[in-house]
């Protein structure tokens, strides 16, 4: 999978590129808005990492320009600006996700993977977490190559958790997603499904675990 890193600070560009390469991505780096536009014209990238302060123009403007074109890859914005206005401006301009410097490299990799894991993204069909694989088309789940029998709703919940691996999925979001599945949703429908799912994953010896954040939601964590 090919990524474009748009960053004028040479050391950061090198390190981000290196970190992404270690996560087995192919990475190109450019340092200016002009080069970024040229690169995106020429090559089809799966995702881009964009620094907002660039020497020949504001990254936000590049973002807005890119969003107007079809087939723009998902964009993760990196920036040292951290006021609310900046964050809102970035997301309004079409950033798919936002990381504030200084960031942890693992976080950059995780966020990029999350962008690629979106429906329609290159990693969006076969979702992986630890030794668990969820095929979003075939709707089945395997742990170490062994199919784990899961209910429809359990697979749906697991899919949302994997797409946001390591980040909390609010319970309300899961309720909304499952609402269309024709279930009568009791107040504890989600906790019950998650409970079964968790038990089945443990039985299948999956090296990822569902954590409950009481009052908020759930998140899936890969275990070392």
């Amino acid at each position: 999978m090919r990524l474009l890193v748009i960053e004028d600070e040479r050391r950061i560009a090198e390190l981000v590129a290196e970190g992404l390469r270690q996560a087995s991505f192919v990475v190109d780096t450019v340092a200016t808005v002009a080069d970024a536009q040229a690169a995106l014209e020429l090559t089809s990238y799966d995702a881009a990492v964009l620094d907002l302060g660039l020497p020949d123009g504001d990254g936000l403007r590049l973002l807005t320009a890119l969003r107007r074109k079809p087939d723009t890859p998902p964009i993760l914005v990196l920036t040292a600006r951290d006021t609310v206005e900046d964050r809102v401006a970035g997301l309004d301009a079409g950033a798919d996700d936002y990381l504030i410097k200084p960031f942890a490299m693992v976080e950059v990799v995780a966020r990029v993977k999350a962008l690629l894991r979106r429906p329609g993204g290159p990693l969006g069909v076969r979702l992986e977490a630890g030794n668990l694989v969820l095929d979003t088309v075939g709707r089945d789940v395997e742990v170490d190559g062994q199919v784990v029998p899961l209910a429809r709703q359990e697979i749906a919940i697991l899919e949302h958790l994997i797409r946001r691996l390591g980040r909390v999925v609010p319970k309300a979001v899961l309720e909304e997603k499952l609402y269309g599945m024709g279930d009568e949703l009791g107040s504890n429908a989600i906790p019950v499904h998650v409970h079964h799912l968790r038990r089945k994953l443990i039985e299948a010896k999956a090296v990822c675990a569902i954590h409950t954040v009481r009052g908020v939601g759930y998140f899936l964590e890969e275990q070392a």
Partner: protein
Amino acid sequence: MKRASWPRSLEGRLLLRLGVLLGVTLIGGLASGIGAALHAAKTLADDGMADKFVAEFMGDVGWMFPVLTLAVLVIAAWTLRASLKPLRAVSTQAAAITPGAIAVRLPIEDLPLELQPVVMAVNEALDRLAKGFETQRQFTADAAHELRTPLAILTAGLENLPTTGEIERLRLDAERMNRLVAQLLGVARLDGQPLDVSQTVDLGEVAARVVERFAPLAAKTGCSLAFEPAASPVLVTGNTDALGDAIRNLVENAIAHSPPGQEVTVGVDTAGAVWVVDQGPGVPLEDRDRIFERFWRSRERRGSSAGAGLGLSIVAEIARAHGGTIAVMDTPRRRRALRAGCAARPIRRRIEGHRSMSGGGARANARSRIASHPFPKYAVTHRALAGRPDTDGPPSKNPLWRTRVTRGQWSVCVG
């Protein structure tokens, strides 16, 4: 020399002096008039004109003295009041100047010429202050960028190296430095830039987002994070970002003190209180006043590399900016303290952090434990009264508090 008896106001002084002057003139004039009249009367007495002279004097001229005196005083008072009236408008304007509204300038148009230089000088001083604020804000923004970029390089560089014991330690150091820089910038921002506390904020939403963000981190340190929302949305006026920062700092502090396997709970109630409870050892009584001071660290943590002692001072600062306070509290008297707070200020909202030690047993038991334990096990609440909620619902029933009471827990209030 003391001159308290002398009138302070311009009007008072002028009237007093004019009054004295006119009084002296009047008395002098009357005296000399009477003298002249007596003299004239003596010479004129024989002519039988004296009575006529006095009557004519009083009729033609004498009555004018008191009337003139009165007129002068009235005109003086009226002129002074009229010309100083714009000054009242100026003071109203000046009263509106706060760190959050430094764009206000005092009007000089209607002021008497004599007063204009003073007000102009004040306006210029305000200009310089505004510029100072702006420079400070700019400095903060620049410092953020200048410090963060090299730190990001350092952090990412360390992460890309193969993990060894030493590299692991360096990573922790870099992480600590990242946190410190972020907090210093937070402090600088609060100091240098007036906080806009006029936004409508859904406090529950802000707290939930913080919990969402920190839950995975808490899991990595072995504890769990939970959120107890209020029964209805808690809308308050304040600054979304700053309130989020405050809650984040309380949560980070609680996670740092939470024993593994225990839950850190964040809660919001309809009165606008936010509290954070951990099951750690609590804050020793003697430290409770000081934990909100900048760079203060508890004895156990002083030698260690964890924390710079800025987090809670930021929370206190944000609470203050919202017109609130912050306090360390505990559970048994927490209920009482809360109730008192609600009774006295029914529509105040609070930010609370709450650190507690779980433990069963009857309250009496617990009390005796306090007495015998050098570091009593108490629940601690960092409580901040901050601003006013938009809705003034009834004081909430705090589910956490209720469970604590039914478990027969106790607490000590230190707030």
